């Protein structure tokens, strides 16, 4: 789905501080950073680190004590909350589908609020259900209680992006589903993120989920920003001991999941036993070597473009 109307907007935090009533420390403490338009940014940290609170300042569900949040370079404090929120998708762990409405009515909530006509809403509902891999004909008229947890969250995502928001907030969206469903939902989220160009802010405490989804990761601790970088940069050069422990950066196999065969291969020919796709991770390549392959032909669209050996993997980890 290519949709020019849903191009992402940049989000910027400037010295944002949040303190809850009766709390003895700031939930978010003087956090500043900028998220480029269209990127997938994951807020990572243990519970109580302020990641959800920080996320909720973007759509004004939480109001900072100090500092400013900008969406598309506009101070959110200057926008009426309802108007602001209709332009920002919101997905939560508990999903919160409206139990008295059908799937179609749930997805249609925001488009109807912003005044789309009936035909456009109806067409959009079908388009979105297809996008999240639910057959519109089968699911349109069902009620949330008739759906599995995974299906409910697919509808939750469709509802959040229905009116083509330039920013999408996802607060531990897959925390309540089982591992197999979570993995499928992560793949689909990645796929949808690529097709939408929406700026996505995603909260999780699951390191593997963060590494799998993120263009950039924000590591938080006790309300403070500890490190903000690409997954590979954080794994290669953790800023503090806390980041090292949180992401277990000594686990090099984890880093291999972020490196591609394309990046480690040598452009030469030679005898090979087996082949691997250029886009496959070095972790998959390692798997092939451990199963007995000597040299792997690296292929792109069927054509061999290079060779990968076991030593290339070691070199990729210590450039």
């Amino acid at each position, binding site marked *: 789905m290519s949709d020019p109307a849903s191009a992402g907007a940049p989000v910027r935090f400037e010295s944002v501080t949040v303190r809850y009533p009766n709390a003895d420390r700031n939930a978010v403490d003087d956090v500043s950073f900028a998220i480029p338009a269209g990127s997938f940014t994951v807020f990572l940290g243990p519970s109580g680190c302020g990641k959800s609170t920080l996320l909720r300042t973007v*759509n004004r569900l939480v109001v900072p004590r100090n500092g400013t949040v900008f969406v598309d370079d506009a101070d959110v404090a200057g926008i009426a909350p309802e108007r602001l*929120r209709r*332009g920002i998708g919101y997905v939560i762990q*508990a999903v*919160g589908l*409206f*139990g*008295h409405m059908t799937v179609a009515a749930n997805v249609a909530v925001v488009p109807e609020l912003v005044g789309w006509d009936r035909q456009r809403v109806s067409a959009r509902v079908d388009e979105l259900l297809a996008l999240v891999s639910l057959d519109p004909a089968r699911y349109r008229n069902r009620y949330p209680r008739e759906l599995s947890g995974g299906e409910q969250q697919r509808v939750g995502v469709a509802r959040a992006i229905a009116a083509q928001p330039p920013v999408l*907030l996802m607060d531990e969206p897959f925390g309540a589903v089982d591992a197999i469903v979570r993995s499928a939902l992560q793949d689909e989220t990645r796929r949808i993120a690529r097709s939408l160009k929406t700026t996505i802010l995603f909260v999780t405490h699951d390191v593997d989920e963060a590494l799998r989804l993120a263009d950039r990761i924000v590591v938080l601790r006790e309300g403070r920003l500890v490190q903000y970088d690409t997954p590979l940069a954080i794994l290669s050069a953790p800023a503090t001991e806390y980041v090292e422990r949180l992401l277990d950066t000594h686990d090099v196999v984890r880093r291999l999941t972020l490196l591609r065969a394309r990046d480690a291969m040598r452009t030469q020919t030679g005898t090979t036993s087996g082949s691997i796709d250029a886009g496959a991770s070095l972790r998959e390549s390692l798997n092939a070597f451990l199963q007995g392959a000597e040299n792997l032909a690296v292929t792109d669209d069927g054509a061999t473009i290079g060779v990968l050996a076991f030593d290339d993997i070691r070199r990729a980890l210590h450039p």
Partner: protein
Amino acid sequence: MNYLFTHLPQVGIYTLQHLALVGTSLIIALVIALPLGVYAARQRRVGRPLLGVLGAIYTIPSLALLAVLVRYNGLGFWTPVIVLVAYAQFVLVRNIAQGLLGVDPAQLDAARGLGLSSAQRFWRIEVPLALPVMLGGVRVATVSMIAIATLAAYASAGGLGTFIFEGLSRQYPAETLAGSIPAAILAIAVDALFRGIERAVTV
């Protein structure tokens, strides 16, 4: 039973009077109970003592309350209406508040996050989700009002209680039954009707 069938036109008139008493009281009771119930749900600190007071009113024997009110307010239609309205408040306010408090917080968080205003959240999300519990309160209140409205005859306000009081004073059980049987049927019918509506709105 014979008395009942030989006096059918009178039974019809008393039944209509009975329904007028209960219907009027129900509308007034709801107009008062809806804001009170919403307030009790929003402000728990006010809600608990409020329900305590309404619960105390609920425990006053209705005949005693009516007798006292007749002294101050005189005979007629409105004196029993006051009793019925006062008596219904406890069940109505309690169920309206309970219904609203029972709404899934995740759905409210989602509604806020999607940009529904507080009025839109109330009418489109909270009320429909709380409706089954609220209607349960309306059903219980209405059925007990049908029973209590038989006392209206004591205040010369008519209704099916007229047969009952006359039958009692004349020691004529058949006449008493001509009031109590239609009142019972009315209560059972209204109960069934509201149960049907509750089922229809339950998700």
